[in-house]
């Protein structure tokens, strides 16, 4: 099939960007979306034009490296990552608009590549359990009810892609943060630091320039791992508790 691509091109962080239009023929429906862009890049390279920069690594939907706004939707029309989206979701003659994540806290580096370093810094602020290597007790010394473990797992599947931020009109990272708070908060091992964790992570979140949550729910609709909206309630609950405890 043949598609018309409108792609955001921006040489570097300092330059202004603009949309460019490319026609691409010979696209097969078995191609993944990123393989379609690979084909475009081979063509551009052949013509002596700079290929389009975009991020990807695992191309299996698990590393969280990829992420594009496709026709205004984070990761495109299916509930999956950009790398797992296939061209059979499009049809011959379609026009496809491709942009980078847009958020104040995710500055563009080049074309479709953005800087998500803010996510690492939120984790640094408290998204962990403090246990030095070698000091752990025997694994079976603390049983964890199966349902708690399952709930922790379900939200621990967040891949840190940033689609929730890109989809949110306020550019909030509450879903990402709530997923981590819930993952660690569901487990007995996560209790001792529960108050400080939430307070410190939220402070870092705000400091990075992410917006506040107004409960619109665009984040969870865009999330390829279907992280549920109630992790944000959990985040708010934990924050209130921590404040009541004097943090």
């Amino acid at each position: 099939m043949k598609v018309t691509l409108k792609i955001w091109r921006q040489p570097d962080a300092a330059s202004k960007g603009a949309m460019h239009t490319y026609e691409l023929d010979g696209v097969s429906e078995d191609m993944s979306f990123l393989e379609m862009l690979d084909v475009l890049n081979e063509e551009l390279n052949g013509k002596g034009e700079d290929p389009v920069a975009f991020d990807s690594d695992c191309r299996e939907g698990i590393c969280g490296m990829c992420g594009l706004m496709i026709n205004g939707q984070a990761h495109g029309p299916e509930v999956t990552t950009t790398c797992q989206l296939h061209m059979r979701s499009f049809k011959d003659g379609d026009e496809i608009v491709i942009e980078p994540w847009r958020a104040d806290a995710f500055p563009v580096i080049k074309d479709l590549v953005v800087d998500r370093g803010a996510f690492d810094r939120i984790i640094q602020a408290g998204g962990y359990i403090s246990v030095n290597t070698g000091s752990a007790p025997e694994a079976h010394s603390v049983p964890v009810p199966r349902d708690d473990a399952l709930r922790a797992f379900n939200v621990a599947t967040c891949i840190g892609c940033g689609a929730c931020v890109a989809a949110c009109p306020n550019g909030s990272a509450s879903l990402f943060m709530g997923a981590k708070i819930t993952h660690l908060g569901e487990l007995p091992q996560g209790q001792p630091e529960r108050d400080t964790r939430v307070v410190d992570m939220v402070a870092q979140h705000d400091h990075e320039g992410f917006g506040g949550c107004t409960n619109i729910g665009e984040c969870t609709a865009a999330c390829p791992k279907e992280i549920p909206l109630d992790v944000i309630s959990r985040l708010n609950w934990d924050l209130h508790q921590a404040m009541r405890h004097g943090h």
Partner: protein
Amino acid sequence: MTDMPDTTLTSDPSHDEPGDHGDDAAGYYTPGEPIKDTKAPTGPIDERWQTRKFEARLVNPSNRRKLDVIIVGTGLAGGAAAATLGEAGYNVKSFCYQDSPRRAHSIAAQGGINAAKNYKEDGDSVHRLFYDTVKGGDYRSRESNVYRLAEVSTNIIDQCVAQGVPFAREYGGLLDNRSFGGVQVSRTFYARGQTGQQLLIGAYQAMERQVAAGTVEQFTRHEMLEVIVVDGKARGIIARDLVTGEIETHLADVVVLASGGYGNVFFLSTNAMGSNVTAAWRAHRKGAYMANPCYTQIHPTCIPVTGTHQSKLTLMSESLRNDGRIWVPKSKADCDKDPRDIPEEARDYYLERIYPSFGNLVPRDIASRAAKNVCDEGRGVGPEVDGVRRGVYLDFSAAIARLGKDGIEEKYDNLFDMYARITGENPYETPMRIYPAVHYVMGGLWVDYDLQSSIEGLFVTGEANFSDHGANRLGASALMQGLADGYFVLPHTIRDYLADGPFEKVAEDHPAVVEAKKAVEDRVAHFLNTSGTRSVDSYHRELGNIMWEYCGMERSEDGLKKAIDLIRTLKDDFWRNVKVLGTAEGLNQSLERAGRVADFFELGELMCIDALNRRESCGGHFRAESQTEDGEALRHDDQFAYVAAWEFAGDPDSGGMGTPVLHKEELVYTAIEMKQRSYK
């Protein structure tokens, strides 16, 4: 070039007799001194690690802050080491090419991690895990290292649970286990189909905690392109900031490579797009031996190739073989029919037929080769790519009838979804199609018992080293090794080396630093100034085809020699005719790929030479000349029970590979007896 004296010894080359198996690679290499000392302590095997930990010298806590450690890689092996050494108070610099440490390819591991906890009381023990690993590796691994791996495996689970890794649990709240990869005990811990992700997030969070504590400094979107060796010791690296393009010098007292595997030499593999050999290969060129590079694991259950646009292959977890039955049509005429219309009696469940006792659960290497054989016979299914159908059915209809659709959904839901997304077919209704793909490399940089390479002060951990899996890795053992190395082994062995530090400061204008930096700059300039006509990817794809054809599931003397010629010709063309646009300043993804492909060429050549030299079949390495009457792999312990450690002997300044030097490390088993594997 060679006058292969011994290949004519047997009249039928497919059935080598015991005895002298010639010197197929004569002329392609130079024999070197054997490796005598691996630094493994002597004494009973179950006391060696305790001995080594005790004898390894300690570093005074107040000195640790003055010791600089560079760690390249943030996967399980690198991330765990960065966290642990940071906690101990060393000054760590951590590098990865992705935009966050959490994205290292360990994240993609699905199935699970082994540990000898014996929670099921099913007869497991450290000794049994040790035994299974050595046997699974087809008796080509170093026994003291493997024993240590089994020994520390139990600590890994404790550590991960304490970090909050949400492993699967039973109703009583205790950890669940499953059996995996052809062993008879249940020792695999898992987090649904995302075990690697959960373990890596655990290591990542531990590492980020140290970033906050100021002991670890992280350099993301940085690619290591050279190691700095001063007076025989590794003292730093040259890295390119992939965002600004700046070529940076980072100096340290010790360097750790945890840069993962090099399966992408085949172009198509289950590795990540950026997985590379560059970090390891640059070290190899500076004196680190490369061990058993030809040992490649080809995984039987991957989604088949659909066309020439394909950028990577996707693994479908091995656990599917527990419930799926593998078959192809008996007759070629049926290959393009709808599988549901092919009656039972016209199907060939070839694994069940050939291996009645293990059936669909034979080890990976055996299942893979069997699939290749039936497709070579023209009985493959699915679309034709380059004139051959390369696919076999993995059929769940019997399991669905037995367990119900819900039962299957609960077990494999995410895998079935992924399959449907990629292929557009519904695996609940029509059998899956699978085909083997390159998945893991057992080969890697040679290390001693301390995980130190043949360059002093250069340590290598995780998939990047060769150490624990011999010629074939068991399922769920790579995650175990990565975390064992990173959390529990390296932190002890590296302190013995650092006890002599801090070493004399190296100045940025030291000739070795200047030389290393210039080499990187020259390479970058070369790629950008070669106004060639072919894209990097087109070369990579062609190299991958050569490797897959001649150094893939089955290797032969003629094929390997042909491959070496083809690689050399293609490599020359690459250096003259590659087309890389853009500039050295700023993000330039074609430039990044060009550097990686350049190193894959040299690695590919060495893999073929190693495969040519090893005229035996063992684990993932199958030589057509070395098989039994009924086509099974045949080892030759009398001649090949050694690790092949290759020394680079080319001119580091020119593109030339030279003639590599082969150092043999003899494998001696004191705690286990060598046997031929049988799965019939």
